[in-house]
């Protein structure tokens, strides 16, 4: 049911004609985020410029029970910003001011549309930086990072977005504005800020974020090491951890991923190695140098075939450029691909990689691997060609890999979120009761279910559509929900 014209007029009265998009060609460009497999054209796209206008938009939605979906840069890989038919998209990318950098308290206050990299750019003159660094950091916004609890290569040592956000100004689904969190780690009562972080836009819209900034480490040492097998690289990671070293980052790429990344960036990765490991240490000169020597020794012990130490900030940047472009660069070696984001306990890395390889062979599809080896967060990229009718096979393989991670005691998602993409796999990880309780928490925030509905938790229509999978829906079986 399309929105009635008077409702559109309410938004126009609030934002002005230019900032309310309703032309179907224009709204089409908002039909998906970084997950292109799911597309829904929203009824309207609202592009407010201030937090007050965001709250105003939400109040109109609440009054008319119009579902709304917040969107930042639209780079999410789980369909978290997928619009809702008959609903509105509220774009936050125009709220893009760095409101304050406070070097003495080591924090910054940001609007949600500020990109992750801009935070560090604003902090850098003070010798500070913002630690979470998702690969899309040059484009993804802090609002989206809050929604997804984004990680990045350096979260092994430094943690995720949730560990770096002090407080949030949030527009709740009823249009009221609240502050979650405080100026210090000491909070008043339950950590609602922590609940909101990573809630994938289902609990409200963040309009202001206060983040912690860290002092730029005294030294950073980065090495790129080639290994004769992914397993050898994995053993290096285990030994580093066993030595009591907490590296800033440990990233692994296999031959296919290297081929793509090197093709995109020419960053200097070896094209003939089965596996490459990027290890970065940071800290004080004393600690870093000692541990770096240990790491090099561990690499040698496991048959490292080439060890390249970044000799300058430019070389370090190059290594990271290659790594961070890896996902998008896979577009160079395959017409289509699906990125997975499962996590396994690190000690089961080798085992799971063998299983993935076997599953890929069985499905007749190539799987490229890029992963955060330090924390067991895998990013298997299932390569396929839609034109050759491989889509369904690829989807099956991809979902199978995600569920394999759960089976191994891990998680469906380490950083990309559940969104629409993996909502139907949630019952593989959580029981009916767990999901029902999450839904109750959601109802505490959003009793009318208008805030990014259909994401994160499985719903019967979402998951019933797939023949043979998750039908009948467990929540339905439990009598907790009914088919609409």
């Amino acid at each position: 049911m399309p929105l009635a014209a008077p409702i559109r007029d309410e938004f126009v009265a609030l934002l002005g004609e230019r900032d309310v998009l309703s032309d179907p060609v224009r709204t089409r460009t908002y039909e998906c985020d970084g997950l292109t497999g799911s597309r829904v054209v929203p009824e309207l796209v609202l592009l407010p410029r201030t937090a007050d206008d965001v709250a105003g938009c939400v109040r109109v939605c609440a009054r008319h029970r119009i579902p709304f979906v917040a969107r930042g840069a639209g780079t999410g890989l789980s369909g978290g910003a997928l619009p809702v038919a008959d609903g509105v998209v509220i774009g936050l990318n125009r709220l893009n001011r760095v409101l304050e950098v406070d070097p003495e308290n080591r924090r910054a206050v940001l609007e949600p549309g500020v990109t992750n990299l801009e935070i560090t750019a604003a902090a850098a003159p003070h010798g500070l930086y913002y630690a979470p660094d998702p690969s899309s950091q040059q484009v993804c916004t802090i609002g989206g990072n809050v929604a997804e609890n984004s990680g990045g290569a350096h979260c092994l040592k430094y943690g995720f977005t949730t560990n770096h956000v002090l407080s949030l100004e949030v527009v709740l689904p009823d249009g009221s504005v609240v502050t979650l969190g405080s100026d210090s780690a000491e909070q008043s009562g339950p950590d609602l800020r922590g609940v909101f972080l990573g809630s994938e836009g289902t609990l409200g819209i963040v309009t202001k974020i206060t983040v912690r900034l860290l002092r730029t480490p005294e030294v950073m040492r980065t090495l790129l090491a080639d290994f004769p097998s992914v397993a050898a690289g994995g053993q290096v990671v285990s030994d580093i951890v066993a030595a009591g070293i907490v590296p800033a980052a440990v990233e692994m790429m296999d031959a296919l991923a290297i081929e793509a990344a090197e093709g995109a960036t020419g960053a200097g990765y070896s094209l003939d190695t089965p596996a490459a490991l990027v290890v970065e240490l940071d800290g004080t000169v004393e600690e870093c140098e000692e541990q770096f020597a240990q790491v090099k020794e561990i690499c040698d012990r496991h048959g490292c075939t080439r060890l390249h130490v970044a000799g300058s900030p430019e070389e370090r940047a190059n290594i990271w450029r290659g790594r961070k472009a890896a996902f998008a660069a896979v577009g160079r070696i395959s017409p289509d691909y699906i990125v997975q984001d499962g996590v396994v306990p690190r000690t089961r890395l080798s085992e799971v990689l063998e299983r993935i390889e076997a599953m890929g062979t069985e499905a007749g599809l190539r799987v490229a691997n890029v992963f955060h080896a330090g924390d067991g967060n895998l990013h298997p990229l299932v390569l396929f060609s839609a034109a050759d009718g491989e889509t369904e096979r690829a989807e099956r393989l991809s979902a199978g890999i995600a569920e394999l991670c759960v089976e191994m005691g891990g998680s469906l998602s380490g950083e990309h979120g559940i969104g629409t993409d993996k909502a139907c796999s949630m019952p593989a990880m959580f029981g009916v009761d767990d999901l029902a309780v999450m839904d109750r928490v959601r109802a505490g925030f959003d009793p009318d279910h208008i805030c990014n509905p259909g994401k994160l938790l499985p719903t019967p229509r979402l998951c019933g559509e797939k023949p043979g999978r998750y039908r009948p829906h467990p929540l339905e079986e439990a009598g907790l929900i009914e088919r609409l």
Partner: protein
Amino acid sequence: MTRAAPTTLRPTTPAEVRDAVLDVPGRLAISGAGTARHWAGRPDAVDATLDLSALSGVITHNPGDMTVSVHAGTPLADLQAELAGHGQRLALDAARAGRGATVGGLVATADAGPSALIYGGMRDLVIGTTSVLADGTMVRSGGHVIKNVAGYDMAKLLHGSYGTFGPLVEVVLRLHPVAKATACVAVDGPVDDAAERVLALMASPLEPIAVEWLSGDPGRLLVRLEGGTSTLPARVRRLVELLGDGAREVGPDAWDEHAALTTGEPGRAAGVGGAAGAAGRDAVVRIGCAPRSLAPLLGRLPATAVTAGLATGVATVTVHDASVTDVHDAVAAAGGTSVLRDRPADLDAPAWGAAPSALPLLTAIKNQLDPEARFAPGRFAPWM
């Protein structure tokens, strides 16, 4: 209406906890080691107390993955002893762990110690939880891997909940390696002086693990470093140099006094102005604000003893019980948060400062998860 004396139930398994919640009608208090019995709002009368101290022990420890799952009633000190054998630890140094505080209790009270500066609090260390709701639902969230964004993070909701949503029964924790070497540097001086030194310290690359000022005459700043056995001495020298006049390395027992002050142990503390603490009528308030606002705020509080994380903005202050409301007001005026901890059992002072803007939201979630308000009544008085 008269009531019988409340029953105390001591379940030993998660299933027994659930059964207890289902079998005992009415309102329930939750207790662990009892180390934070008097913290936050004074409990209202209940029909039964769930004592989780028997729900104890490690469930699984995966040294290679640096994760451990434990029953909620496990004393942290016991856990640390077990982990130490593997060169690992839970990176939490809350003072009351020494008195037997349990893992579940530390989560529920959002307690943390000086090393929260680097490692964060329980909210940053818990990666999975299982808890029991008022209707007997056993709910699990998170998992056994450090990196995980699947589903809402119920651990955060339980962190600082004081049991209001129900008892935790199982907690999964991420671990850190035990530091190969630890050192502590002290420099004496009043809080304002310490705050300026801390500003310089935090702008330096020395990466302190903990930075705390202790009240006394004239007060003392303690800075903890961790590192390798061969590399730490050089950093200690840099730190001593940076902190300037009077800075010197001290032994680890310097932190004992910190722990004593933080727990408000009467008689141990000399006041900020040198006055002795009013033993017996002391109240301990935990406060937090922006780090650079802390020293000026402390100057405005009638505190008899203080430990202050000058880099975190979190402090624990001991005041005469009549001053609790003044503390809440002063902290609120500085944009901070405050909660009453230990105090005389008969003290009738508000446990919490000004209500947060999210109070209606908190109430709505409480109504969703515990609609009959069975759990921990009174803990959030006067808010809800």
